[in-house]
């Protein structure tokens, strides 16, 4: 497995628009779909729920710009996934997450980048690529992107930006 930074991290068929109203609901919705496609193991959902409870993954974007919604990067230990990709999940309802770098704090999140990573030693760090996307994309583009409600638009924008930043980093 090469895991070059420019390898595609998104799949057009794995982009979700969720009407869930809490963490467990959205995690179960997405995990069930991923399990049916053999992208994760049967225990993925349990590890996902347990990890989020003990080691939350909310990222406060208000420190970057108050116009950009907060995100979360839910993920499991590598043994519970069978691929290496990012699953974008737009939340039509805000869902509360705890802050990854200060778990005592809680805030509303509008978008999830669920990370499936069966190769943590791979050359390119998936989380670093997500944060590069958040830090390097202009505020106007991000505001527009987070309003998108068509999975195809979400996929094409993310794919284009991630490929662009990965090439810039080469």
């Amino acid at each position, binding site marked *: 497995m090469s895991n070059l930074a420019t390898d595609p991290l998104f799949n057009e068929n794995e982009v979700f628009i969720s009407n869930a109203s809490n963490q467990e609901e959205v995690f179960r919705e997405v995990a069930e779909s991923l399990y049916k496609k053999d992208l994760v193991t049967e225990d993925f959902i349990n590890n996902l729920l347990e990890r989020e409870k003990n*080691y939350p993954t909310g990222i406060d974007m208000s420190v970057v710009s108050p116009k950009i919604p907060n995100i979360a990067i839910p*993920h499991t230990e590598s043994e519970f996934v069978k691929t290496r990709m990012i699953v974008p999940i737009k939340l039509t309802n805000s869902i509360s997450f705890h802050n990854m*770098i200060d778990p005592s704090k809680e805030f509303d999140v509008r978008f999830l980048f669920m990370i499936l990573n069966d190769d*943590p030693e791979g050359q390119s*760090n*998936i989380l670093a690529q997500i944060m590069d996307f*958040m830090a390097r994309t202009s505020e106007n583009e991000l505001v527009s992107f987070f309003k998108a409600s068509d999975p195809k638009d979400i996929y094409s924008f993310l794919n284009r930006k991630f490929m662009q930043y990965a090439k810039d980093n080469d």
Partner: protein
Amino acid sequence: MFKILAACGAGVNSSHQIKDALETEMGNRGYDVQADAVMVKDITEDMMKNYDLFTPIAATDLGFTSDVPVVDAGPILYRMPAMAAPVYDAVEKVIKESGKG
């Protein structure tokens, strides 16, 4: 060599980003640094004795006390120089005080 233990919940994403960032930045600052990335739940008192610095994502209760210095490295994850700089400076301070690196 100065040894750093980076840790996160899954040992997959965040800790590896911290490891890569600290090795790169401290290397650029002229220090000989090696970092390992692990799951918080796998850290033992004996393991910790092999390291000069512990850099979790957030304040972490390991269930035991340790004399190893701790620098919370979470802000590095933002990939923004202004947020990472205080973490890097704190790490560099510990390296200097240790006489290693």
